[in-house]
C-alpha cells in the first residue's frame, strides 16, 4: 500500500516574501506572519480558504525569517491541517549535492518542490500567496478552470486604474480567455489585476517549470516568465473574476486600512460566517476585562486585554493593557502592548510588546489634511513618558 494518496488538487503557498514595504513590521517576521485583525495573521486567510475549500494538502514555501512562521503553522492543527495524508507541510529551500540553493523566484520555488507535488500525483496545482486578506472558494475557481478546459486560470479583480501598475495586468476576450498579460506595467492597458492566485494543470505547469529553469535569462517568476511563455505558446489561459473583498496589505497604509475595514458595516469580508471561519492559532488567554472607567466604541478587542481607558475605532490584539485616561483612536494595537495612563494614540500601528509611557502622544496631529499619515511603533520599543511622536513617523528604537 502506498503511503500517499492521490489528491486532485494540491496548494502551494508562497510564504517566503519579506514584505519590505511594511518596514519595521517585517524586520523579524515574514510578511505572511504579520498580525492582522485582532487575532489573525495574514497567512490565516489563505490557509482557512484552503481548508474551507476542501483542499487539505498545502506546501508552505518559506524563506525569509521563517522561524516565527514555522512555529505558527506547526503541525497545521489550528486549520484542521494535521492530516494523515497531506496536511500542511513547511517547505524551506534545502541543499542538494554540494551547494545550497535559495528560492530564486516564485517559479523556481515551485520547481524545487516538484518532488513534493509529485508525491500526490495531482491533476491541478493552485498557487497562492500569503500577502492578501480575502475569502475565496478555490473550488468554484477550479470548476471554472475545468469548464473552460483551461491550462491555467488566474483569479482577477478590478482595481482602480491608477493602482493597476502595482499588479500583473491582463486583457481578456468576451469568454474571459486571456489575450495579453503584463507584470507591473508602466502603462497598464487594463484594470484587471492578478490576485496572485493561479490554478494550473499540473502536467502542463511541470513542463513549463522545467523549461523555464533551463533558460538562463529567465527571472524564474510566474508573472514575468511562466504566464507570458504559456500565452506565447497559445495555451489556454483564462481569467476568473472575483467580486468579494480583497486587499493587498503590502504597505503600512493598506495594512492599516484593511484593519479599519473590519470595523465598517457591510463589508463583504464577513468574519462571522460560521460556514467560512477564519482559523488562527489560539493563545489560551482569559476573556477580556473592561474596567470601571473604560469607554468602548466601534472597536474589535481580543482576549486577555484589560481596558480602563478609551478605545475608539480601533483593533486591539490579545493581552493589551490600556490604562486609565489613555485614549486609543483609529489605531491598530498588537499583542502584549501596554498603553500607560493618559497616553494618546491616534492613526497608528503599534507593534507587539510596546510600552507607551504615561502621557505620551503618538500621531495626534493629523487634523486638517485628508491624507491620513500612519505612525508606526516597532515591536518591543518603549515610548517614554511624555514623548511625542509625529504623525506618519516610524519609531524603531526607544524614545
Amino acid at each position, binding site marked *: 500500500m502506498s503511503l500517499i494518496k492521490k489528491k486532485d488538487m494540491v496548494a502551494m503557498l508562497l510564504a517566503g516574501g519579506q514584505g519590505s514595504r511594511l518596514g519595521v513590521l517585517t524586520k523579524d517576521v515574514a510578511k505572511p506572519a504579520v498580525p492582522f485583525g485582532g487575532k489573525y495573521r495574514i497567512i490565516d486567510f489563505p490557509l482557512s480558504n484552503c481548508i474551507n475549500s476542501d483542499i487539505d494538502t498545502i506546501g508552505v514555501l518559506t524563506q525569509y525569517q521563517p522561524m516565527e512562521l514555522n512555529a505558527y503553522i506547526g503541525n497545521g492543527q489550528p486549520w484542521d491541517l494535521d492530516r494523515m495524508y497531506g496536511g500542511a507541510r513547511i517547505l524551506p529551500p534545502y541543499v542538494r549535492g554540494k551547494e545550497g540553493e535559495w528560492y530564486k523566484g516564485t517559479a523556481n520555488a515551485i520547481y524545487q518542490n516538484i518532488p513534493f507535488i509529485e508525491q500526490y500525483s495531482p491533476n491541478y496545482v493552485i498557487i497562492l500567496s500569503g500577502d492578501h486578506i480575502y475569502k475565496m472558494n478555490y473550488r468554484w475557481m477550479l470548476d471554472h478552470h475545468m469548464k473552460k478546459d483551461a491550462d491555467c486560470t488566474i483569479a482577477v479583480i478590478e482595481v482602480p486604474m491608477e493602482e493597476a501598475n502595482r499588479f500583473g495586468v491582463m486583457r481578456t476576450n468576451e469568454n474571459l480567455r486571456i489575450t495579453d498579460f503584463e507584470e507591473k506595467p508602466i502603462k497598464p492597458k487594463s484594470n484587471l489585476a492578478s490576485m496572485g492566485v493561479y490554478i494550473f494543470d499540473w502536467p502542463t505547469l511541470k513542463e513549463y517549470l522545467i523549461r523555464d529553469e533551463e533558460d538562463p535569462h529567465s527571472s524564474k517568476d510566474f508573472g514575468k516568465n511562466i504566464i507570458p511563455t504559456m500565452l506565447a505558446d497559445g495555451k489556454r489561459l483564462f481569467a476568473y473574476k472575483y467580486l468579494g473583498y480583497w486587499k493587498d496589505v503590502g504597505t503600512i497604509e493598506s495594512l492599516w486600512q484593511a484593519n479599519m475595514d473590519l470595523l465598517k458595516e457591510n463589508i463583504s469580508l464577513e468574519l*462571522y460566517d460560521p460556514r467560512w471561519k477564519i482559523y488562527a492559532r489560539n493563545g*489560551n488567554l*482569559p*476573556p477580556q476585562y473592561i474596567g470601571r472607567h473604560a469607554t*468602548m*466604541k*466601534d*472597536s*474589535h478587542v481580543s482576549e486577555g486585554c484589560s481596558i480602563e481607558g478609551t*478605545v475608539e475605532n480601533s483593533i486591539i490584539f490579545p493581552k493589551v493593557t490600556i490604562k486609565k485616561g489613555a485614549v486609543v483612536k483609529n489605531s491598530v494595537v498588537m499583542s502584549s502592548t501596554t498603553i500607560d495612563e493618559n497616553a494618546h494614540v491616534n492613526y497608528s500601528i503599534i507593534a507587539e510588546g510596546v510600552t507607551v509611557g504615561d502621557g505620551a502622544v503618538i500621531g495626534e496631529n493629523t487634523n486638517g489634511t485628508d491624507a491620513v499619515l500612519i505612525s508606526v511603533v516597532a515591536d518591543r520599543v518603549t515610548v517614554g513618558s511624555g514623548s511625542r511622536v509625529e504623525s506618519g513617523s516610524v519609531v524603531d528604537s526607544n524614545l
Partner: protein
Amino acid sequence: MSYMGLIYSYSDRENLRELTSNRALAALSIGGKYRIIDFVLSNFVNSGIFEVSVIARTNYHSLIEHLGSGAEWDMSRKRGGLRVLTPFANKESTDSAQIYKGSIDALANHLHSIKKSMAEYVVLTGSRILYTMDYRDMIKAHLNSGADITIAYTNQMNGTQRIPQGSPMVYLDEQKRVQSVEILDEEQSDREGSWCIDVCVIRKTLLESLIADATSHQRYDLYNDILKRLAPTLKIFGYEYCGHLLEISTISTYMEANRAMLDPEFASKVFQETVYTKVKDSVPALYGSDCYVENSMISDGCQILGTVINSVVSRGVHIDKGAVVKDSIIMQDTEIMDHAKVEHAILDKDVIVRDGREVIGHPSYPIVLPKMSIV
C-alpha cells in the same frame, strides 16, 4: 515516577437548579469562556500530568462534547491522555443516585480502567471547588511524609464566604496527621477544623485494594467509609493549600465565583497559570457605537451594542442596542435584543430575550433561564 488524575465530574452536594439538570457540574460555564472542568484539567496539565480520567455519571453529553479528544488540553496522547469514564448501562435503575452508590462505587465501576494505568500514584479531585495547584508539590509532600493518603485542606477562605453543608472537615495533629474527619451537617462560616478541598494523593495499588475492601463490605463513600473510618489506622496526612478558592454548589456561590473573577487582582491569580479550554475560532469581541461597558468580562465572538455592567459574558453573545445587562452571567450564544433588560440573572446557552422584555431577579435570588429558553 508516574501519576494519573481522576476527576469526579459531578457532585452529590450541589443545588444549581436548571444549570446542572441537563449537564454535569464539570461542564458548567464559568468565567466567560470556560467550563469548570477546564480549571481542573489545566491544573493537571500545568503539573505535567497527562494521564487523566474523568468520571461521568449522568447527562455527560455536554461534557464529552466539550472535551473531545483532549487535544486542546494537550491531552490527546498515546501514553496516557484523557479518558472519560462513562457508567455502564446494565444497572437495574436509571436513577442518577443509583448509577453509582457513592464515590467509592464510582471508582469500583471503573476499576478495570484504573488498574490498566501504569501510573504509580493517583491524584483524586472533584469539580465543586476551583483552585490552582501544582500537584507535584503535593505529591512531594506525600512522599516525604511517608503517608498512605494525603488530603489537601485549607485554613483560609480565599475567595469564598462560607463552608457549605456536606463539606468534609479534617482535624490534624501537630505533624499534620489527620486525627479525624467529619462531614459538616450545616453551612458554616467560622471555621473549626480544616476544610478539605477535595484533593487526595494515594498510591494506586493502595487505592485499588481500599476500593475492593470497601465494596465487599458495602461501603461506598470515600470520605465516610475510607477517610473517616480509616483515619486511626492509616497514615493520612494533610497538605495545606493557601491559594485562592472558589466553591460552586449553589446559585449564589456560582454567582459569587463569577463575580470574583471581575476583580483584576483576583483574576490575575486565577489566570496566573494558563487555563486551557476548547477553541471556538470566534472573531474578537466587537463593541458598537453606542455601547457602554463597565466592570465586565467579555469573551470572543461577542457583539456588544448595548450596556453591560458588572457581568460575565461568554462567547458569541449578542447584546443589541439599548439592551441593558447588569449583575448577570450570560452564557454562550445567547442574544439579548433591543431595549431588553436583564438584571441579577443567569442566562444559559442559546437563550433569546426579545425586544423590550425584562428579566429581573433579586440579588439574593437570581433568575435562572435554562438553555434555549425564549423570553
